[in-house]
């Protein structure tokens, strides 16, 4: 990482701490911001956050590893989480899963080579009456069928390039 990037990163974290307060209860909101902007929480970030909030880096690391939506490793720009609990299972989540894997050419738990898509499982998205459900970053899609998988991925792809709105703005 460039030194200038590091400084910028530190500046961002300081701004978020300013926004959420400099005590330990600000930890999760700050980490969520980092996750949203950088799609992962590096060891460096953990140490900076710990330093500013006056807690220990290992505590931050414990929180990051506890929550599935926070991660240490960089993930794709679009994280697709497909619900694997019983209602979605009964409404055909397996076919959706296979379609996702085929379209993206990766298995669950993997990220595409271009760094755009990550496939993950989720446990109950609270859409049991409208299954199968999946989550793309922070947007929910319900009653997904193998046919609509294609549309969903296309919709994601269309948000690339110069017309792509900033992730933070779109999903804030």
């Amino acid at each position, binding site marked *: 990482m460039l030194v200038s990037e590091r400084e910028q990163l530190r500046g961002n974290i300081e701004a978020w701490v300013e926004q959420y307060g400099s005590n*330990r209860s600000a930890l999760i909101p700050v980490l969520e911001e980092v996750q949203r902007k950088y799609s992962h929480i590096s*060891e*460096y970030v*953990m*140490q900076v956050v710990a*330093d500013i909030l006056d*807690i*220990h*880096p*290992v*505590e931050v*690391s*414990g929180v990051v*590893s*506890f929550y599935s939506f926070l991660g240490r490793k960089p993930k794709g720009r679009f994280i697709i989480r497909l619900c694997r609990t019983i209602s979605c299972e009964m409404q055909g989540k397996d076919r959706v899963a296979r379609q996702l894997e085929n379209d993206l050419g990766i298995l669950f738990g993997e990220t595409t080579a271009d760094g755009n898509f990550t496939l993950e499982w989720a446990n109950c998205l609270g859409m049991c009456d409208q299954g199968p459900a999946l989550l793309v970053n922070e947007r929910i899609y319900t009653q997904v069928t193998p046919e609509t998988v294609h549309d969903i991925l296309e919709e994601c792809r269309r948000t690339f390039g110069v017309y792509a709105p900033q992730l933070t703005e779109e999903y804030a």
Partner: protein
Amino acid sequence: MSHSFKQDCSRAPTSLRVQKINSPTLQVAVTVHIDDREIEVPVGTTILEAARQVGIHIPTLCFHEDLCVAGVCRICVVEVEGHRNLEAACAYPITAPITVRTHTRKVRMARRHILDLMLSEHYGECYACFRNNNCELQALAQEYGVDFFRFGHPEKPRYEIDRSSHSVIRDMDKCILCRRCVRTCIDLQEVGVLEVDKRSNQSKIITFGDKPLGDVICINCGQCINRCPTGALRANDPTDEVWAAIDDPSKHVVIQTAPSPRAGIGECFGLEPGVPLTFEMNTALKECGFDKVFDTNFAADLTIIEEGTELLLRLHKALVEQDAAPALPQFTSCSPGWVKYLEHFYPEYIPNLSSAKSPQQMFGSVIKTYYAQLNDIDPQDIVTVALMPCSAKKFECNRPEMCDSGFKDIDYGLTTRELAQMISEAGIDLPAMPKSDFDDPFGTATGSGVIFGATGGVMEAALRSVIELVCGIKVEDLFEHADIIPVRGFEGIRFMELPIKKTGPVPELLAGLVDDWTWLEGATLKVAVAHGTANAKKVMDDIKAGGRCSECHFIEFMACPGGCLGGGGQPIPTSPAIREARAKAIYAEDAAYEIRKSHENPAITKIYGEFLTDGPGGLLSHKLLHTQYTPRGKYIV
């Protein structure tokens, strides 16, 4: 006696923090029935505390008196009438009259299952474990009659043993996730090496980034070892190397013994805490094969002279030479855990740290120079062993700069536990040994050296000497029996002020440093004492903020709660009561000494007369007895 560790703990969820109502107007008592016994307790008392008051035993595992309540192991579950689920006795504050049953069938079955589940994850090689016969899990398995592994048992180790640290070895195969080490490291010591990673059956105790212990910010205090219920954490044990040196006839093996192990080692031989075995241990060490047994207290006295001189010179700089930024307050540097803590967390304050080495290291360089010359032994053939209550001393003796004698000053650091092991391996019944004295030329030291083992001891020893050397009066004139009570005790941070009304002549020992003491007349010496690095952190933050601590001139820090007597190499278990008993033993030993002030130690006068001829703070003492520190910082790449 106040133990200010548990109360300030910010980590435990509010619901789990035991909250007592201390206001007399709000003091409400509730009646509890525990197994047909009735007791009235204040609101907020836990079931466990209430049961202990009436003498009912409830087993515990994750509960520790020094730590905040976690309620994670569930071994203390009890049945509360009217509740559908079992409740954890350690984490259930009583707020209304309840009836508790501690050993119904439901409770017994639950505890047995909990134990079986723990054993299904615990790779227990009991014979090859240093906690054999002193293991809380083993004891519980016996107590609950575990006779087979209901849920299986690991046949093979699953983790690599982490031996990267000079001081602490981690064996995660033996971990049962009680989180005592986590609470010790984060709440009690504020160092933050260990934390739980992930959730549920994937959870594991890790260091930051799951790096080896030697690569993370660990101060090696070993408090986690003392509180681990199993053998997952242990000290790096050099007994094999020490035995090899003893067995080698060409080696002259010398051991120095610190004051705290004497107050604690009896516990390893079944004695009550607080029975000192100083002179019995001397005989036993000789019997084990050590050629000479020396008293670290000699070096402690040397430390007092060197560190005290340094303080007086710094004060001189500030008051007479009008130095705008004198490195005051001066910090003690005897505790290697504290030194490393400062190097990591407050590297900008390294100039404040006394450059004097710790007694262990001073003795090492004195043995390999002065003692070697006196007895005409090649220092290359001397093996110096240090018996310490401390795991951080193992790191300290391996610091690359600790070779001022031209050799490694201290070859091996032994803990109290390891020595007890060696003594029992030699078939010696320590408490039954005849008494014998320490060897010459260092002889028996002073009472000031002995109290180095307790929090406040270094300060008391320093004050005794400073009062006499500077004021020219007897300490006994100011404090009864020369017991400086204000710096004693177990309160986290203690302050004391000592007005210097008149000064005496400059004693012979310090002649040449200053012309007179008159510049100190009318000044007030302000000192503070802190033990446990959580308290050290408070002091340092206060200094940064310009609070009361920043006005002090001299601050004693010890990394371990209670000082060295609660060190990470002391016998397991530890608790406030045990530490108090050890402190009593140490102060009793001090009171029994004829010479109780460092500067009156004849061996000290002798070494400054014969060897360190340019006096305290002179060139030779700077070469041999002083050191420099490394700013380490707290960021890991």
